């Protein structure tokens, strides 16, 4: 009988992965730090039009681009004369499963079907589970969604419980686990037992699926305004959203800066049982955003297709209170009730708009559905029940897990810029840790691409590490 212990299953991870994604990652490896990212991304030979056509078959994509005139007015009311860029939002909540994740899922599920898999498995506590379940239902495939959901007292995060309900509504099996990184071990066991497809968030299919989001932004904005936007802001967690959007924009020749934004959860350990339910955001936060930006290959595939630092022009952090506040503003001023995590980029846009001229335009590239459990009222209520203090004040004083500080006035919403060179150095440090020894010329070129930095910067960073 096969050894199913933690150590034994983890040691078989590469073989399990290879069998479950229909991709041989070894073909793209150089043997050292570098790998051929672009060849991996084009392995499935899908054109942008083909991806759009597949998504259209699932009813995914073609979401509206809406100008938020009152949010813009509010930003102008908070800024110096002549400032306050126009803010637009891509209303991705209109996808069948309620988020942009439907784009990633559509292509993954289509590939699973094409390659002859009987079912799909995905490990996610987020909107992606519902997206995979929705597409699997339409494709006639079985679906298992594995969630990290509850703490050792059996208390589930309300947002994750709602996502479980949605997955179940689409006919998926939802396996819920308590807190811990060994979820990956259970995930591998299910893949091995079922021989089903790994609908990972990080395969090339999942990222190709988001390229259509970037392409639609370029196309729709050009139709509306006859030019390209001045800034696109993406909420950043695992990096796929930003990577795919930026690649899609590039494919349409749209040279707009792409900005990342995350909710600050600094100080809360993501694998801590006692801190699990002290956070009010389950995605779009720094607990994923920072580690995945500075080392993308920590995912459930050998090489992640989500490599955000290649495409990120700047990175801003918002507090939980700031994002809840802007979520309420979106409902009250624009009549759009949407899930809080997706509005992280809206909070960033509201702040950055105030430093830009009025004729400039910012695109917030997603929204997500809201509902019981994942509404900002539900999250604030859950936080209060956990002893977290909710009050008005200065958002900069918010300590995640201790309090949620709603801005005293809208002017208090101030996106905090991150040091990009520190993130770049951190990626290089992680690469050197994984691949000790002297990097080759090819590795240096790879690190320049990975960090979107020049050779002088990369060589200096390597020198500082050695």
């Amino acid at each position, binding site marked *: 009988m096969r050894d199913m212990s933690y150590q034994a299953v983890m040691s078989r991870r590469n073989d399990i992965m290879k069998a479950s994604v229909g991709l041989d990652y070894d073909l793209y490896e150089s043997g050292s730090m570098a790998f051929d990212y672009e060849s991996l991304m084009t392995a499935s030979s899908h054109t942008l039009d083909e991806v759009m056509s597949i998504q259209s078959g699932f009813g995914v994509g073609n979401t509206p681009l809406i100008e938020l005139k009152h949010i813009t007015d509010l930003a*102008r009311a908070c800024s110096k004369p002549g400032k306050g860029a126009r803010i637009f939002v891509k209303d991705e909540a209109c996808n069948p499963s309620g988020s942009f994740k439907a784009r990633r899922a559509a292509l993954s599920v289509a590939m699973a079907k094409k390659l002859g898999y009987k079912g799909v498995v995905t490990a996610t506590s987020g909107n992606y589970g519902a997206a995979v379940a929705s597409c699997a239902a339409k494709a006639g495939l079985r679906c298992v969604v594995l969630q990290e959901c509850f703490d050792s007292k059996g208390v589930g995060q309300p947002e994750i419980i709602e996502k479980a309900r949605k997955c179940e509504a689409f006919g998926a099996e939802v396996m819920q686990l308590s807190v*811990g*990184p*060994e979820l990956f071990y259970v995930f591998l066991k299910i893949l091995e037992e079922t021989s089903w497809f790994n609908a990972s968030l990080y395969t090339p299919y999942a990222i190709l699926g988001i390229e259509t989001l970037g392409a639609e932004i370029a196309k729709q904005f050009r139709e509306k305004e006859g030019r390209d936007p001045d800034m696109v802001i993406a909420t950043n967690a695992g990096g796929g959203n930003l990577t795919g959007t930026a690649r899609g924009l590039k494919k349409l020749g749209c040279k707009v800066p792409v900005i990342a934004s995350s909710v600050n959860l600094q100080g809360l350990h993501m*694998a*801590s*049982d006692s801190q699990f339910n002290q956070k009010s955001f389950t995605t779009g936060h720094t607990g994923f955003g920072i580690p995945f930006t500075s080392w993308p290959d920590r995912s459930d595939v050998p090489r992640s297709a989500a490599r955000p630092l290649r495409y990120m022009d700047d990175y801003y952090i918002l507090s939980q209170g700031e994002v809840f506040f802007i979520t309420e503003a979106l409902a009250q001023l624009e009549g759009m009730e949407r899930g809080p995590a997706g509005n992280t980029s809206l909070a960033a846009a509201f702040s950055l708009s105030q430093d830009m001229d009025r004729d400039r335009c910012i695109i917030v590239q997603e929204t997500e559905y809201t509902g*019981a459990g994942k*509404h900002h009222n539900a999250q604030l209520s859950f936080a209060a029940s956990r002893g977290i203090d909710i009050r008005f004040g200065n958002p900069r004083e918010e300590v995640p897990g201790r309090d949620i500080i709603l801005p005293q006035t*809208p002017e208090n919403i101030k996106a905090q810029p991150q040091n990009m060179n520190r993130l770049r150095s951190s990626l290089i440090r992680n690469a050197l840790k994984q691949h000790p020894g002297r990097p080759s010329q090819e590795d240096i070129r790879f690190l320049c691409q990975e960090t979107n930095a020049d050779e002088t910067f990369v060589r200096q960073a390597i020198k500082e590490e050695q």
Partner: protein
Amino acid sequence: MPKNGDWVRIHSIILKPNERAPQVPKDTALVPLEMRVKGELLQDAQIGDTVRVRTAAGREITGKLQEGGLDYTHSFGDFIPQLHQIAPMLRRKLQEDHNA
């Protein structure tokens, strides 16, 4: 007493505290990794019995039959007074700007 064919939830311990991954934080290392899943009960049983269920994905899984827990009880939460102060604040701000 749950009957064969009822839709139920089961629970099991996947890793005992001493079997947990080396990198987990101290508080997590003290507790087991637990699992719960719903499915169709494949036998008559009592709460706490070890049973088999067939899940929505058609997989058969073994675990301890858990009491109830199949209702969706998550909600929009209790009244949060602070949330109701935001809209008037925003309208005031827009009005001031309009009057300026």
